[in-house]
């Protein structure tokens, strides 16, 4: 009298992916004993899952692209400009970022851990477009004009490194001038980008004001950890 229960593929997938409750699992396990087709369907789904895992167990090493930019950066630029405007407006209004939230407000976990401190700004440049190089330097100069004791760093990676390379930068004199006027301004190059360029035979000579970090991302992460305000140009 007992007809084998017809489990849908969605249901069986949920079983394979451990998305079912104990009772539903028990029903399927009990049904397998008397339904060979069900066992085969589950086996096929499990095999498909394992094949996907296997196919991406070892992916090719990351290959950075030096010759083109993603359209994705355009959105980031727009977001960055908004952020820059917001930070400057806040600073000009003499409101520290960390005090902007009222006590008891629904602050985020990370916001509490990484409350940015005023006066330390990390500007991230990864493009060689002249308007973006300009924007990075303009921002540093504008901030230092208002707060000469602020600490500002410009971190450059990918094509943004062209700002700091002797043979590509249009702003060597401007960088030297900024550094001469403000000892606390820093220019940081991504060591990974340098290594990649050297790997394809490019001779990388940096302007003398530059220091080198192991990777841009690690430097950004450390600065954020230290409470710096991070701005992506």
């Amino acid at each position, binding site marked *: 009298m007992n007809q084998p229960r017809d489990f849908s593929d*969605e249901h069986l997938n949920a079983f394979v992916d451990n*998305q079912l409750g104990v009772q539903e699992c028990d029903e399927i396990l009990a049904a397998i004993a008397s339904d060979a087709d069900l066992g085969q369907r589950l086996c096929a789904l499990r095999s*498909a*899952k394992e*094949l996907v895992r296997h196919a991406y167990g070892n992916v090719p090493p990351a290959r950075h692209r030096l010759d083109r930019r993603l359209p994705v950066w355009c959105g980031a630029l727009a977001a960055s400009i908004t952020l820059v405007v917001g930070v400057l407006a806040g600073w000009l209004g003499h409101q520290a970022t960390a005090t902007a939230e009222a006590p008891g407000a629904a602050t*985020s976990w990370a916001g509490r851990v990484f409350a940015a401190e005023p006066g330390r700004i990390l500007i991230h440049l990864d493009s060689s477009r002249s308007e973006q190089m300009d924007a990075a330097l303009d921002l540093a100069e504008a901030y230092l004009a208002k707060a000469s004791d602020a600490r500002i760093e410009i971190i450059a990676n990918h094509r943004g490194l062209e700002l700091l390379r002797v043979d590509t930068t249009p702003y060597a004199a401007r960088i030297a001038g900024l550094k001469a006027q403000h000892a606390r301004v820093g220019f940081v190059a991504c060591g990974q980008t340098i290594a990649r360029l050297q790997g394809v035979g490019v001779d990388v000579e940096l302007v003398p004001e530059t220091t080198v970090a192991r990777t841009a991302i690690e430097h950004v992460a450390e600065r954020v950890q230290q409470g710096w305000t991070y*701005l992506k140009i």
Partner: protein
Amino acid sequence: MKWLQSREQRELVEQIKDSRLRLYRLAFAWCHDAGLADDLAQETLTRGLSRLDQLRDSARLMGWLFAILNRCWIDHLRGRREDFDDELLAELPSDLPGPDSHVERQETVSRVRTAIAALPLGQRQVVTLIDLEDFSYAEVAEILTIPIGTVMSRLCRARASLKELLLEPPVAQRHLRSVK
């Protein structure tokens, strides 16, 4: 300085650094282009670091980062197609050649990657988030901002296609067998 002493801070920064390979692997499974995958992972990390104040629970860091990866990926696709919309995303086929052009490549990894690449993008995202990252259906729904029922139906179609492409004999062979 007190911020250097925070275990929470150190752990979160380490987690973010460590997430790069996972982001890269998933991006590679979506686009099968090592250069683009690396750009997407990098952009995800930079966007994530600049928006840390939006992270509401440290335990959900990876889901949050994968949601950002999804947005980066969509922004990239939007940059390529003016008529792009979210509906198109679900059915957008791969840019890669289909499985037929790889028929002689019998090596398992290549065959599976080719089969994955042949899936519509929406299905590809769901199946890789579940199989490679072990996210629950509810988490995938949140990451991709789609209903959980859509997650289940896309997964179902994806696995059916993979099963047909990878686990079942070609139609011609099936026919021969049935004739015997």
